């Protein structure tokens, strides 16, 4: 019996859904293969989150609590993760593919000389490792991958697996951890534009994303109103984040975030492959674009060919009626 370990990423005291998706998958694989599904929470107050993690089938939960984990910093996180690796010796160590994960995955792999596959959309166990699917070429193509070794790291794109509750009574192991400020190799000066209680894009059920077509004030207003009627998270194409019109954290795509909402409304977005790379897995895609040949229509379930300034006002009204 081997250990399948899942890292539970926490941001502002909340567990990232993508971690729980990975845990759900790990639990499923553990049950099918006679392994044990375990999890590790590393946070300022890790113990508070054990209960939620148990719901997804972890039979053992490691916790590391230290105020240093208030904000993401790679040096302490790497130290903590290495410690857990020593302790749990996981055959597979899974991560949700968050920015925090991306920051440490390479270094962690190099540190323990482990095989690593990042940003997979599917994975399963093999005799000597894992087999995984990764989107490549701006997500136009899927690649089949194999990784082998005693410890394998894998990070999983958000939305790849459904949450699947299978509550257990977990053994909780509080790991001893200390970190001295002097060990920090870098200094975190400040965090700007922290999202606070904004809806996290990669977890949103509904997203309204704006592109260059909606770059002026009026366009922005319409997009905001549409998002608020639908209680949706706002997203953006690179054209708008690059121009400083929308916050960089809202960018969706190859450079930005990967999302998989139930409903994605693309407003004034052409549908460049690098944008589509981040949203093609949305359940229902609606596109508003005045160019009937815009590539976004190739993937939209409902394409509205028209000027967004003319289409959005009645659309918003209509939605209000339905909602209200």
């Amino acid at each position, binding site marked *: 019996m081997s250990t399948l370990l899942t890292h539970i990423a926490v*941001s502002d005291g909340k567990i*990232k859904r993508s971690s729980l998706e990975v845990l759900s998958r790990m639990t499923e694989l553990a049950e099918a293969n006679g392994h044990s599904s375990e999890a590790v929470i590393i946070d300022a107050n890790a113990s508070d989150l054990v209960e939620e993690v148990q719901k997804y089938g972890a039979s053992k939960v490691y916790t590391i609590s230290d105020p240093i984990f208030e904000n*993401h910093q*790679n*040096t302490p996180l790497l130290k903590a993760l290495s410690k857990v690796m020593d302790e749990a010796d996981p055959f597979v160590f899974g991560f949700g593919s*968050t*920015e*925090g994960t991306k920051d*440490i*995955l*390479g*270094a*962690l*792999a*190099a*540190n323990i000389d482990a095989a*690593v*596959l*990042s*940003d997979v959309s599917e994975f399963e166990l093999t005799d000597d490792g894992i087999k995984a699917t*990764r989107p*490549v*070429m*701006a*997500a136009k*193509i*899927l690649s089949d*991958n194999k*990784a*082998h070794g005693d410890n394998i790291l894998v990070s999983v794109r958000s939305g790849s697996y459904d949450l699947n509750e299978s509550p257990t009574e977990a053994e909780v192991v509080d790991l001893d951890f200390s970190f001295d400020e002097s060990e920090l*190799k*870098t200094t975190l*000066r*400040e*965090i700007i534009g*922290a*999202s606070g209680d904004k809806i996290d894009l990669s977890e949103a059920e*509904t997203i309204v994303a704006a592109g260059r077509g909606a770059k002026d004030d009026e366009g922005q207003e319409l997009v905001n109103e549409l998002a608020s009627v639908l209680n949706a998270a706002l997203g953006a194409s690179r054209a708008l984040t*690059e121009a400083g019109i929308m916050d*960089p*954290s809202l960018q969706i795509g*190859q*450079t930005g975030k990967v999302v998989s909402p*139930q*409903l994605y409304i693309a407003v004034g977005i052409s549908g460049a492959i*690098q944008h589509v790379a981040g949203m093609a897995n949305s359940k*229902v895609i609606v596109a508003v674009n005045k160019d*009937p040949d815009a590539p976004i*229509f190739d993937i*939209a379930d*409902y*394409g*509205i060919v*028209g000027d967004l300034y003319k*289409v959005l*006002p*009645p659309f918003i*009204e*209509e939605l209000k009626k*339905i909602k209200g």
Partner: protein
Amino acid sequence: MKFYVCIKQVPDVDAPIQIKNGDLMQDTDRMVLNAYDASAVEEALVLTEEHGGEVEVVLVGPDKAKETIRKALAMGADKATHITTEDDVDYDSAVYANILATFFKDKEYDVISCGKQSQDTDAGLAGGMIAQHLDLPYATNAVGLSIEDDNLIAKRQGDSGQEIIELPQPCLVTCSNDMNEPRIPSLKGIMQSKRKPMETTALSDMNLDESALSAKTKVTGYMEKPEREPGQKFEGEPDELAQKVANLLDEEENVI
């Protein structure tokens, strides 16, 4: 200041591709400078223009990748090292990181910068690996860089906002293409690029051991992505369109 920028030659993701017998085929053999690396080069150029210093690019790849090195030199990098490999090696990020870290071991530098990911594989691993091997302070996914005294200040796009991180030099940073708009080489730049120093080292002369060069991960095949079923396209009066689509979303899809 001495900047090393790790640059990679990658297939142009905009070129038509197809899969034949599980292999990835490009209609044209279109290879380009990784877009994220182009941003790293640009930023290094801007910072050395401002603070003085030198930019050297390093590339691990086959002979034909020279074209990509020239591009970086034409942008303005001062010199280049080309670590040459066979044509069709199947190295993963870890192997490239091993090679690059070995190269950097006895070098002097202030900053090593990488792209935040390869645009063909989106792996995003090599930078952190190199930093770990060299025990360097590092930051990934930088969207802005500046120099203050002997520190590199990186603005990093994190999960909950932008983290402003101070890195003592020497350090490593991986760059997002959101950082800048890479310059297009001028004709003079292109002409000068031919005369800039380019050191070529065969990988086989670097004496890396077998294990450092054997990839623990392998691509075993490629598949076409299942296409989305083409949907409905509506044209006509805005009012009618709005009503129709809103109702469909409500009644057919149940997503409102």
